[in-house]
């Protein structure tokens, strides 16, 4: 006789009870399916993230800047890296900020270059330029043309060279430079924007700079490497690029919305997790009701001597067998789903298959099945059904019929059933909640989108918002490059000349120094910077506060310094300080005095910005408290406006403790119990006053070197003064045209203001990022819009800037939004159907199991509506719990992630919608259950109660 194995018993049981297994199979299938979708989706999101980095800088894990001093042998034998490529920078083109160099073979394979046009240089004398480099050089040449430049080797004498342009390359250096500027003490590191053949005739003087690009050896991670001795020895100029997490990347516009990506892959996990939980509960309840039908069988098996363990294994095995069947189908459908989603969201999710991913999918599904079937199995093997029913602890004790109010029999049966089998409805509740929540999110998103209007039609912005600053001691200088990477007056004129352009406004600012006439610091400055320091939450008595960087709230570029320099007249006045701060203060005074001597000024230097504003805005007219705005004088650079707000500082004290402090120019907005502690009122600027301004910029070859920690020796001071003197300095005297006390400037505080023309006339470089906002006249057709965009792109690329088409963005956003909304709608319909069918099939299972009870009730006179009542209540309760859960989650999401979701903004519409949908869900369930009940009622009572 053949041996009977557990598997055979399980298989036979599967075959015999197809119907009963259907819901269990669906639960397990859904678990596998959702696991696959979640894992692949999250993986695809990460992959999409990585692809963006690969598109820009290739497959490197990091790079060493200026690593010529380290030998190849040292790097190779260190064991940290699998591949090491070298990038050589030979010379600067015509003093332009563009550099020539070449990649070795390994570097080329690690950071593939693609030719937008033409080919890579293959012979001496050939050159290929990056797209932006070509635009920024403002050359009107194409592939095949020849160009002659004065080349400046990194160290040495200039040489005249003639090259043939053979190709236009994709951009890579801007990204490398922006990564590199993070660690470079000397401004933007040079990365070749133009490539020549590696065997090109070398320059006679100066060795090329060498950057090494690397990939880690197996098992090396960023943190392991940075903790190593090797990193200590040559690693201070090492930059890691983590493709896998998207972290440790800096100033890459591709990753500006890093949080968004993290959020996206998070959404996969949250959604997947929630659905998986639902599946788990579904499997659990399916398992439970299946086992409930088999109580007799279990009892019989126990009677013939099966141990609890054997019973668990026997009935658990059904689950595993179903799992095996569901695995390929679920995985297949999951893959298809993610593929479809990736078609809709091509840039945020990449469809990438990886055999290794099947491992977590299988493990997750198995875990889900294991965990969710464990509880019902345990219960089934431990307890007899009679045990459950004998549990009368919850029921009332009664010996005689007491005078009680009449009650509904059906409601009683329903509630008793729900109480005895609480698990059966939980899955459906979660499903209802998810459906409603998704509906709420969709409705909020939809309503938000429909109310959105962009402010401008186009704007032009810098490609890489990184600032070419140079640090020296406590002084910071903008690089000369700030002067080059801007749109010229001709560029602006060309933009204005484009047809259909209605208005063009420029937003930028120049960081400058204001020279005070005498060494005495006016009270306004003292108060203003003291108040501002208080905004930053610093106590006046705090020692370190004396070193608080004082600046306009925008950005401290040119110049930062200690407050001590500003508030104290001499170093000696700063008393009661520790030695460390005393040295620091003394050093600052020395530096500043050196700067004063270098620039030939006697008064103290105050950092300010000159903001480019649109003075035609009537707000500016209204803010004038002294003098008047003379546009012609501003344009000519003869006058500037001064925004000198009156600043107040309030403190709110509760129970003797300071609970809040505010400072600002607006006097009406603070708590009534706040006390005004101090004010800064302009007593310095007045119309007609002459201001002496200067701006210092560095050039690559005259950077001030980093000085010692101080105090300085006379020789060091002499050096420093000479370095300051060598800086490119623009100095000008200008008259104050008008003083304003209020201005529509956003967060800007005390500053000078002028027009776009005025800034050029003053001769100052806009050292802060430039934005150009362009509005078109009315509606233009799509062809005209594209023509305008192409024209703008040509102009913007000359300054290394890019054009953002707000109209196209809005259209694209709306399109994406609609796509997403459609997907969401599909998911909602799916969820709704699942929620209804879960409830209906669960009720259907119960109706089948309760056939005898139904027959009995019919025999004692229950009609259809009364019987329906038995199954109505659990459904209403389930739906109501789902609704409640959804509302709780909605409120939670609204409060916790108020920055990301605008939850509740349209609650007047969303909440009734949720309730309506819940009601609809309950209605659909009722119809479904009615149909199921009819099947039983169509039989006669006798058939219902007949022993099965």
């Amino acid at each position, binding site marked *: 006789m053949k041996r009977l194995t557990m598997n055979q018993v399980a298989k036979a049981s599967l075959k015999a009870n197809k119907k009963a297994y259907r819901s269990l199979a669906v639960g397990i299938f859904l678990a596998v399916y959702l696991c696959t979708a979640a894992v692949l989706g999250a993986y695809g999101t990460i992959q999409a993230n990585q692809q963006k980095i690969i598109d820009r800088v290739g497959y490197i894990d990091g790079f060493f800047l200026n690593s010529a001093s380290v030998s190849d042998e040292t790097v190779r034998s260190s064991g940290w890296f699998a591949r090491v490529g070298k990038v050589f920078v030979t010379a600067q083109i015509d003093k332009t900020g563009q550099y020539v160099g070449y990649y070795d073979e390994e570097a080329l394979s690690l950071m593939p270059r693609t030719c937008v046009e033409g080919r890579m240089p293959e012979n001496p004398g050939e050159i290929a330029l990056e797209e932006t480099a070509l635009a920024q050089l403002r050359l009107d040449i194409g592939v095949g043309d020849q160009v002659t430049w004065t080349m400046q080797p990194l160290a040495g004498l200039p040489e005249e060279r003639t090259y043939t342009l053979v190709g236009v390359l994709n951009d890579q250096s801007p990204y490398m430079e922006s990564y590199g500027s993070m660690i470079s003490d000397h401004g933007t590191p040079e990365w070749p924007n133009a490539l020549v053949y590696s065997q090109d005739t070398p320059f006679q003087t100066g060795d090329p700079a060498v950057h090494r690009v690397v990939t880690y050896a197996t098992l090396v991670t960023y943190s392991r490497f940075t903790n190593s001795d090797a990193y200590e020895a040559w690693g201070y100029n090492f930059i890691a690029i983590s493709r896998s997490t998207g972290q440790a990347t800096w100033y890459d516009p591709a990753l500006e919305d890093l949080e968004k990506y993290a959020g996206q892959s998070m959404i996969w996990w949250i959604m997947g997790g929630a659905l998986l939980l639902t599946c788990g509960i579904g499997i659990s309840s399916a398992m439970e009701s299946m086992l409930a039908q088999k109580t007799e069988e279990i009892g019989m098996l126990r009677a013939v001597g099966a141990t609890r363990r054997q019973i668990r294994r026997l009935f658990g095995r059904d689950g595993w067998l179903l799992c095996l069947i569901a695995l390929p189908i679920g995985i297949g459908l999951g893959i298809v789903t993610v593929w479809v989603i990736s078609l809709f969201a091509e840039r945020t999710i990449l469809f990438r298959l990886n055999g290794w991913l099947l491992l977590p999918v299988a493990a997750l599904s198995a875990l889900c099945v294991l965990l969710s079937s464990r509880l019902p199995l345990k219960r089934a093997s431990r307890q007899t059904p*009679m045990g459950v*029913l*004998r549990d*009368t602890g919850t*029921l*009332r*004790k*009664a*010996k*005689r*019929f007491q*005078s009680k109010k*009449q*009650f*509904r*029999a059906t409601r*009683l*049966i329903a509630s*008793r*059933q729900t109480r*005895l089998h609480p698990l059966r409805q939980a899955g459906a509740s979660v499903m209802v909640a998810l459906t409603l929540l998704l509906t709420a999110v969709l409705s909020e998103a939809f309503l938000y989108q429909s109310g959105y209007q962009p402010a401008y039609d186009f704007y032009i912005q810098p490609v890489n918002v990184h600032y070419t600053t140079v640090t020296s001691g406590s002084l910071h200088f903008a690089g000369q490059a700030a002067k080059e990477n801007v749109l010229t007056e001709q560029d602006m004129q060309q933009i204005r000349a484009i047809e259909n352009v209605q208005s063009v406004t420029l937003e930028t600012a120049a960081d400058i120094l204001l020279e005070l006439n005498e060494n005495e610091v006016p009270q306004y400055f003292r108060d203003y910077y003291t108040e501002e320091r208080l905004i930053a939450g610093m106590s006046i008595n705090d020692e370190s506060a004396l070193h608080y960087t004082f600046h306009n709230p925008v950005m401290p570029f040119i110049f930062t310094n200690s407050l001590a320099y500003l508030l104290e007249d001499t170093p000696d006045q700063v008393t009661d300080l520790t030695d460390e701060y005393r040295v620091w203060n003394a050093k600052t005074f020395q530096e500043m005095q050196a700067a004063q001597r270098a620039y030939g000024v006697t008064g103290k230097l105050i950092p300010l910005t000159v903001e480019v504003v649109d003075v035609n805005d009537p707000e500016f007219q209204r803010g004038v408290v002294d003098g008047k705005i003379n546009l012609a004088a501003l344009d000519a650079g003869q006058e500037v406006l001064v925004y000198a707000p009156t600043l107040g500082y309030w403190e709110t004290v509760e129970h003797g403790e300071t609970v809040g402090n505010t400072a600002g120019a607006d006097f009406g907005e603070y708590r009534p119990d706040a006390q005004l502690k101090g004010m800064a009122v302009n007593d310095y600027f007045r119309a007609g006053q002459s201001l002496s301004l200067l701006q210092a910029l560095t050039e690559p070859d005259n950077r001030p070197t980093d000085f010692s920690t101080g105090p300085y020796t006379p020789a060091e001071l002499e050096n420093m003064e000479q370095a300051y003197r060598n800086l490119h300095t623009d100095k000008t005297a200008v008259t104050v045209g008008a003083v304003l006390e209020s201005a529509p400037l956003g967060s800007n505080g005390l500053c000078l203001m002028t027009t776009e023309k005025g800034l050029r006339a003053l001769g100052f470089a806009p050292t802060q990022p430039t934005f150009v906002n362009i509005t078109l006249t009315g509606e233009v057709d799509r062809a005209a819009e594209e023509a305008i965009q192409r024209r703008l792109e040509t102009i913007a690329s000359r300054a290394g800037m890019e054009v953002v088409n707000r109209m196209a963005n809005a259209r694209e956003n709306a399109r994406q939004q609609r796509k997403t909304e459609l997907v969401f709608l599909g998911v909602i319909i799916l969820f709704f159907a699942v929620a209804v069918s879960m409830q209906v099939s669960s009720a259907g299972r119960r109706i089948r199991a309760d056939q*005898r*009870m139904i*027959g*009995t*009730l*019919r*025999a*004692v*006179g*229950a*009609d*259809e509506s*009364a019987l329906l009542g038995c199954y109505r209540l659990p459904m209403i309760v389930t739906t109501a719990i789902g609704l409640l859960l959804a509302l709780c989650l909605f409120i939670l999401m609204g409060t916790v992630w108020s920055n990301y979701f605008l939850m509740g903004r349209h609650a007047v519409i969303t909440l009734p919608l949720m309730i309506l949908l819940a009601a609809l869900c309950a209605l659909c369930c009722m119809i479904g259950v009615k149909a199921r009940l009819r099947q039983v*009622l169509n039989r*006669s*009572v*006798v*058939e219902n*109660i007949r*022993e099965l």
Partner: protein
Amino acid sequence: MEILRCESLTKTYQSGGMPVHALQNVTLTFAQGSFTAVTGKSGSGKSTLLHMLSGLDRPTGGKVIYQDNDLSKYNDNQLSVLRRRRFGFVFQSYNLVRELTAQENILLPVMLDSRKPDENHLNRLIEILGIGDRLSHLPGAMSGGQQQRVCIARALANKPAILFADEPTGNLDGKTGREVLTLLRTVSQELGITMILVTHDLGVAEQAERIIRLEDGQVVDDSGVTVQ
């Protein structure tokens, strides 16, 4: 006085394509307050007859008339109302609702009718049946005899006109069976309830005023009191 009658009652089941005649042309009349036993061998059609008479199942042919009303003209809901107001049932396998306590099971017909229970009547029933200390128990926690008593209490709770009992003692031992039967008779007589009882036990049948014997779906013997 007649309370229930059936005319040419026929019930045919389909079993494996072959028609099975469970009842053939049965015509009977039952008097108010009478106690009738229906006997016969297994498969003789006695349970089927009871189901037809009580409206639990619909006949293939013929009709059942309760107080001049033709039950075949009643729809399902009307039948339900009739069952809960005028009829009572005692089943061989008790058929109590296992989620409800004994007390709740007893109250079921009253509750389904949304009426206020007659407390005196119910308390008397419970006293007679001796199940006062079992009222808060679920059926699973009671013995067969106790369950059957609850079942009888349920059947009598709404003071029905006719009590149908299908082998009420079939699952009980001899002593308990006799006790249950005595109770049934006592209560029915006291309340003037017409009782129709199906049994294959001749000892039980002999306690009835009238005995109807069925064979192959036909009445072969009808002895005892007949309607005037």
